[in-house]
């Protein structure tokens, strides 16, 4: 028996992130690079570390190799202690056969044993694909104050965007009275952020019942929450104020990276009190060459900039040759922009190359952001 925990986290990291296609061809979305030196999962894991939640089950399914390697022992997030840590939880076989995770709720259901191991009072359910900084202890305090069965973290969205979200309608106490998935005519603008705190006993009972239902999609939003509302359980909102972004599409991924470049960014990577932790190899400092020009950009270690970088995110171990120019772009780790090349309004995948004097991307704002996949080569010797 492991040491009993008050609250453990279950982090859903099995999704393919198909809308990020070229960047998730060989890696799961939570392992996609973000913000120069981070991977998307760093933000949720760092929130756990900074909230003193030291036991995190990471549910993986799609292309887990790179994600598993990245998580390692959990040391990078101080989660390699004796009691707790990071646990990778893939689908597994039992006496009655083997099955994939059939939905978010099913993934947790199949790991009830893991929850039982720590016998927590509360279970925090997270997604591994959001960029935000949150004190989960504050949410837990709110959960306890309301003696809630389930707390759903929500944030106000502009009314016209509400139809794109799962919308919670709550009374003046914050008790949820209605949940509508992508409502055409929303009566609330409180969008679910996909962050839940369950009282553990309520969660287990709900999961076991849901598993028995052959008509269920085994989804938290689609099945578990509506079921609990029907049973008149105590569901409360936790209203989050602050920066939160789903980076599930190229345009939101690109835009959220660009927002880091503002003089006073809404999301401050530099906040020393709640640092974003990551598992990085030691890279030497970046070298900015004699004729280089870097402006309104962030640049990660190990990079070599000989050309011009303007309003861009340059990740670890990137090379930008003489006379090359990068503008309004996100360049992922290990990418190479050869001499004289021009990259504008683009996302370049890991270890991708734009060859000498090639032009990738377009200034024309009506053209979508150009995306070069991981390991791809654009220009002479690659695709044109």
């Amino acid at each position, binding site marked *: 028996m492991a040491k009993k925990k008050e609250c453990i986290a279950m982090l859903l990291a099995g999704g393919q992130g198909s809308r990020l296609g070229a960047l998730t061809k060989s890696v799961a979305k939570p392992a996609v690079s973000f913000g120069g*030196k981070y991977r998307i999962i760093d933000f949720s894991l760092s929130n756990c570390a900074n909230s003193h939640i030291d036991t995190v089950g990471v549910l993986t399914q799609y292309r887990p190799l790179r994600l598993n390697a990245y998580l390692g022992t959990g040391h990078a997030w101080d989660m390699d202690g004796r009691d707790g840590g990071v646990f990778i939880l893939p689908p597994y076989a039992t006496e009655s056969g083997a099955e994939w995770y059939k939905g978010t709720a099913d993934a947790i259901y199949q790991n009830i044993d893991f929850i039982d191991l720590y016998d927590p009072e509360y279970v925090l359910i997270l997604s591994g694909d959001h960029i935000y900084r949150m004190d989960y202890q504050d949410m837990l305090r709110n959960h306890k104050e309301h003696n809630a069965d389930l707390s759903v973290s929500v944030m106000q969205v502009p009314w016209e965007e509400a139809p794109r979200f799962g919308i919670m309608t709550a009374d003046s106490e914050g008790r949820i009275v209605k949940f509508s998935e992508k409502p055409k005519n929303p009566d609330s603008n409180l969008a679910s952020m996909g962050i839940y705190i369950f009282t553990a006993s309520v969660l287990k009972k709900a999961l076991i019942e849901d598993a028995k239902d052959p008509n269920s999609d085994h989804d938290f939003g689609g099945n578990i929450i509506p079921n609990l509302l029907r049973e008149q359980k105590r569901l409360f909102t936790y209203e989050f104020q602050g920066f939160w972004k789903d980076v599930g599409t190229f345009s939101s991924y690109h835009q959220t990276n660009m927002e880091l470049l503002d*003089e006073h960014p809404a999301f401050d990577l530099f906040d020393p009190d709640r640092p974003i932790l990551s598992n990085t190899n*030691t890279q030497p*400092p970046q*070298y*900015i*060459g004699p004729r280089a020009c870097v*402006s309104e*950009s*962030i640049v990660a270690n190990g990079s070599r900039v000989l050309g011009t970088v303007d309003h861009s995110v340059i990740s670890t171990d990137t090379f930008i040759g003489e006379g090359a120019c990068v503008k309004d772009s996100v360049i992922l780790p290990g990418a190479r922009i050869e001499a004289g090349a021009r990259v504008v309004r683009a996302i370049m995948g890991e270890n991708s190359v734009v060859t000498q004097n090639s032009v990738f991307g377009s200034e024309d704002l009506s053209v979508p952001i150009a995306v070069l996949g991981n390991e791809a080569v654009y220009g002479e010797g690659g695709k044109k």
Partner: protein
Amino acid sequence: MDRAIGIITTNYDTPELRELINGRTAASVPFAGRYRMIDFALSNMVNAGITSVGLITPYKYRSLLDHVGAGSEWSLDRKSGGLFVLPGSVFGISSPGSRFLLRDLRRNLVFLTRAAARYVVLTTANVVANMDFADLINVHEKSGADITMACVDATRDEKNLSNVHVENGKVTGTSKGVKAGELAFADTFVVTYELLMKLLEWYGAIDYLDFFEVISGDYDKMDVRTYKFEGYLRTIYAAENYFRNSMNLLNPAVADELFRKDRPIMTKITDAPPAKYAAGSKVTNSLIPAGCHIEGTVEDSVLFRGVTVCKGAVVKNSIIMQSCTIGENAVVENAIIDRSNKIAPGTVLKGSPDAILIKEKNELAI
């Protein structure tokens, strides 16, 4: 039994490092934007597959232990072997230039007897090089020598290095000081384990001497050879060559050789975000690590983690260490600004290329 174990000595006098060793050891002097001197020795050991490393500490070891911790960054937090922090002797330093004090080795005999191996690689923490110690051991093993000394051609006159005298391929002695072009000892050698144990036993009475002083009369009885290292190697025992060798890192060829991907130099990790360059910042020919925030101008300089260069500030030909702030419109030229200095707006701090200005840790506050 391990093939080789390592010993890194750090218990030596380096008065010429001056202000840079106020409150820290020569081994923990920051270098190359994010590293400490000791990172090269530790990484070279580990990259050669050596998993037992003894670190002989000087008296004031706080900054050194703060940096190396349990050795986890070098994967030396192991069940079998690992990093062994060993005490150096307080009154042991015999003469300037001594790097391998016999007493420091004798005091830590237990490390040697417990971590028995066929060879022992010894080096100091102040050698800047990416040297393949595995190759050094291979050459030593193949030749059947008792001791193999890594050597380089001196790039300039250097009184802090020893000249190695060779006749017919065998070392016949060493002498202090070396002239440009002469063969210099790279403060790194491999010795056959049994011989080292015997020497430590025989010469107990004169253990206040340096290892190479102790064996000075024995070269005719032993097989001591050289291993010529052709790569980039500098030793840093003085502030003046600290500055010059830091600036060498602005040559990408030098940086590539030191920080090679197949033999990485590892260091203590801090979770600093990537460096941020504001609109209007001008950075050329400089090393900038994570955690820096640049709004002004930086030319021909090496910055360390967490440095802020405010609007209108100019940093030229300088080294700015961790957590310094260069205030608005301040000018810093030909200087080493040690860590945690806050340079007030408009201040002008200038040394000259021949007389680098050094500001100690925490010397200036706003």
